[in-house]
């Protein structure tokens, strides 16, 4: 019986997530369109509301071209690694009180583990394509993700110390008991580091060097087409949603809000997640891309020392305040 309930939960979360992924692309085009004084997609349905469905169908029916000289096995597995690692991370996210597919004690570490796996998909896609641009994209991705994962892990140590737990549900509970109700205020340095590392981890602008169009065509997914390309695309958007969920759970108080909305327990959670997603698009429409050495310098010389300082500060405050 319990297994049935878990399977049902997985199906529900998967279905809802996929709809959100589809409409995240629509949302992105609309937001960026309006920021550039355009309308964005308008043709398919009223205000282009059916555009994601049209895009999905198009990608699904496109021919799947596999170049001749690729390492076939790795070429096929790479997008799956990306997608599966992104999807698995969703399993521990508590969407509202008492609702997570798996409420495990090491929730936060689990998400780190899964997001570090996503790098494999990108690196292997780059290598197996047997082509120069994807290869450079893959190398950039691996260096970038390893560097920024350290910064991201360290930025969340402050949260772990304040909550005294790695369980995501416990972190939300501990926040509602804390004086400020959210960790954003006492952990503002950690949040700042997390926010920047979040962009780098998901390979989004201004850190989208692995797929920088002007330099590398499309980076690691240059040789992919049709549905395989769509898998990378989905993985990227799920990754964004997961990172937003981590941000909401660790810094913005999870499912708690200023007042309870009756009947919709996940109201505040979704609202906060979309705040982060909007930030992703806002930054993409505003900031130019970083140069590669600048990206590395920022990660190692600014973010990691800042995160370490934050850990020291949190530890000192914790021992003073008891």
């Amino acid at each position, binding site marked *: 019986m319990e297994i049935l309930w878990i399977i049902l939960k997985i199906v529900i979360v998967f279905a809802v997530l996929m709809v959100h992924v589809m409409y995240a692309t629509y949302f992105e085009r609309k937001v960026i369109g309006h920021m550039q004084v355009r309308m964005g997609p308008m043709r398919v349905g009223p205000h282009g509301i059916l555009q994601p469905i049209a895009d999905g169908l198009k990608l699904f029916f496109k021919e799947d071209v596999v170049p001749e000289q690729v*390492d076939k*096995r*790795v070429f096929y*597995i790479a997008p799956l690694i990306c997608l599966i690692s992104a999807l698995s991370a969703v399993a521990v996210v508590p969407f509202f009180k008492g609702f997570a597919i798996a409420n*495990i*004690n*090491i929730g936060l*570490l*689990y998400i*780190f*583990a899964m997001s*570090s*796996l996503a*790098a*494999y998909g990108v*690196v*292997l896609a780059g*290598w197996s394509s047997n082509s120069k641009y994807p*290869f450079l994209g893959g*190398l950039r991705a*691996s*260096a970038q*993700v*390893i560097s920024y*994962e350290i910064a991201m892990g360290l930025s969340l140590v402050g949260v772990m110390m304040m909550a005294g*737990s*790695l369980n995501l549900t416990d972190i939300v509970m501990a926040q509602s008991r804390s004086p400020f109700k959210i960790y954003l205020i006492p952990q503002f340095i950690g949040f700042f580091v997390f926010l920047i590392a979040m962009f780098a981890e998901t390979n989004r602008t201004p850190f989208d060097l692995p797929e920088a169009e002007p330099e590398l065509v499309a980076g690691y997914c240059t040789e992919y087409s049709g549905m395989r390309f769509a898998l990378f695309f989905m993985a990227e958007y799920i990754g964004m949603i997961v990172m937003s969920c981590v941000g909401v759970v660790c810094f913005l108080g999870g499912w708690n809000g200023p007042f309870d909305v009756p009947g919709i327990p996940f109201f505040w959670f979704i609202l906060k997640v979309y705040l982060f997603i909007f930030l992703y698009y806002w930054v993409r429409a505003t900031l130019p891309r970083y140069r590669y050495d600048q990206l590395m310098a920022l990660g190692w010389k600014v973010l990691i020392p800042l995160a370490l300082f934050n850990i020291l500060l949190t530890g000192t405050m914790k021992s003073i305040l008891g």
Partner: protein
Amino acid sequence: MVYLLFFYFSIVVIGLAYKVISAKNPVHGVLTMLALFFHMAGFYLLLNAEFLAAVQVIVYCGAILVLYLFVLFLVDIKSEVKTGPFIKNGAKLAILSSILLLLTFLRGVKNFSLGPHGHFTIERVQEITHTKAIGQEVFTTYILPFEIAGLILLVAVIGGLALAKREAEGKEG
């Protein structure tokens, strides 16, 4: 159920370990090793050591293996696939070293006792969570080995920095 999982992990780990060393293409070898590390994390989970399981995946899969991949990308894989075994008459040596290894294991098995050791029983670990249990043990009982390991790592970091620095200076001059 636990035994079933244990046998599954054991068989798969042995099979994958063979695949890792028999794979001609080193990148395929690394990929198999990735799956191998995952199944080893499964063993930790069966032992209620969830923290170690997560750290296993983060450190070995997320960091070390990616660095291996990095190195492999710089190797000429096309020639690597064609090379034969490094040692001729490897079979005899393999049998000899297997026998020696087996003898060592047999000696070790004698000292092996079942059940939890020390004051951390399974219930206790589940109650205070494995992360806290391991933290307390590392920073109290095993603080000296922990600090020594830290010192060794520090030396390695300084060594790496010194090597990189020397090369950079050499290029300029």
